């Protein structure tokens, strides 16, 4: 009798496992919150999308945890920004060590070259141009079709809809920015994350339409990263010469440096911008479109 009972429970267990297996959806693991949002827009309910970085986390200084290794071990596809956004290429390393396919979503983006300490550096914050965001989306659609070819039509349909939303967002950003008089289009932020944004929407004409920030392109320890006294001096000079009405802190970085700069130069803090990460669930910045919308409203409100 005892044997029959054991057999019964084994049978129940097998049924439960079978039911779970039947519902298994491919797992896509993205390095950043922005890429995870793009992926969710394309995947719908056909895939599970997870982000390694939590909202508010800094991709430049992220340290791999055992829990994240476990997530990547279960992935069917990994997505990275590339262009060295992920400090020491941690996403590529995670995917390689786990033997998982990796797609670099900036493939095809025309990168902005920066000069630092006599070296050429490529700016990785490409998503701040909505046109580059369209490149990200196209790469994700292609990667998803490669993973689940039978769902090609639905990925393409979602991709087309989302690209139309990005197109409208781009036009809206231009219309909003146009409300700021050209001479007041001075964007000073904590770190050099807004170069693509400045180039696309014509901010900082005095700096060749590139970002003005005391901290370099990365908050990590790479070449051209961090803050140097020379960099800080140039930013103070730039704020004073341009007459910037406000400067901005970022959600992923300690605001101390910008607050000190604001005091020293006598300008106000315009608010907190989403930069390397989007906002937590339930906030206006929890999606890419929401993040861009809120940033633009904040910038326009403070500068016009």
């Amino acid at each position, binding site marked *: *009798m005892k044997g*029959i*009972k054991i057999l*019964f429970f084994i049978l129940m267990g097998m*049924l439960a496992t079978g039911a779970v297996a039947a519902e298994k959806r491919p797992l896509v693991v993205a390095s950043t919150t922005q890429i995870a949002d793009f992926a969710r827009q394309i995947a719908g309910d056909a895939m599970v999308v997870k982000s390694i970085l939590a909202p508010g986390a800094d991709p430049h200084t992220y340290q791999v945890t055992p829990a994240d290794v476990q997530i990547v071990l279960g992935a069917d596809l990994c997505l990275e920004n590339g262009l060295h956004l992920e400090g020491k290429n941690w996403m590529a390393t995670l995917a390689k060590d786990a033997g998982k396919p990796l797609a670099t979503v900036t493939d095809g983006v025309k990168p902005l070259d920066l000069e630092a300490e006599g070296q050429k550096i490529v700016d990785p914050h490409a998503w701040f141009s*909505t*046109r580059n965001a*369209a490149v990200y989306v*196209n790469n994700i*659609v*292609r990667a998803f*079709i490669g993973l689940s070819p039978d769902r*090609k039509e639905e990925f*393409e349909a979602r*991709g*087309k809809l989302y*690209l*139309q939303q*990005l*197109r*409208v967002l*781009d*036009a*809206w950003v*231009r*219309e909003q920015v*146009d409300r700021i008089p050209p001479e007041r289009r001075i964007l000073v932020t904590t770190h050099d994350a807004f170069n693509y944004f400045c180039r696309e929407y014509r901010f900082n004409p005095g700096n060749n339409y590139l970002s003005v920030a005391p901290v370099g392109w990365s908050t990590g320890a790479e070449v051209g990263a961090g803050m140097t006294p020379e960099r800080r001096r140039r930013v103070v000079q730039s704020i004073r010469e341009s007459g910037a009405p406000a400067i901005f802190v970022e959600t992923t970085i300690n605001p101390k440096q910008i607050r000190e700069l604001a005091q020293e130069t006598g300008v106000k803090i315009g608010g907190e911008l989403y930069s390397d990460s989007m906002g937590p669930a339930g906030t206006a910045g929890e999606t890419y479109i929401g993040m861009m919308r809120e940033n633009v409203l904040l910038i326009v409100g403070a500068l016009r």
Partner: protein
Amino acid sequence: MRFLISIAVWVCFVGGLFLYTGWRDAKVVSGTEVKTAAAAPREYAIEITPTFSLEEDPFALRTDSGKEAPLELRLNGRLLPVPVEDVRRGRPLKIEGVEGVVVGNNEIHIKASPPTGESELDHCVRLRLFEEGVAVADATVWGSQGALVSGTLPFTISEEEADHGH
């Protein structure tokens, strides 16, 4: 013994449920007869007049099988060939010999991407349907700032009209 009976009842119940759901999902919808509409016997042409010239859309979908055309014209869901290089701002472009118009309800759908550099403007495309050279349907499709111009021109060809064509 009671335990064995309860297992047997359970197996019968769950097995029956599985069999039923499997049968229900595999059931092929029995061949309901789909009426195919008769082709309208007259000559049709579609004229499009955009307020913009076309340019490559940076927000188009690009997959391995190609990229989205900057203008798509469909008749009853079927893509019509349009010489996109001839589409010019304010200039009417007539596509003659349009096939696929049927007796009954028809739809022309257009989707076009105005230049992103003109996103501060509202753009539109005027769509006209000609039957034997006479305009019989007309609509203007608008796209607000930055959006694609996308819309539908529905029209009906009555049996009576079709009979006159014989």
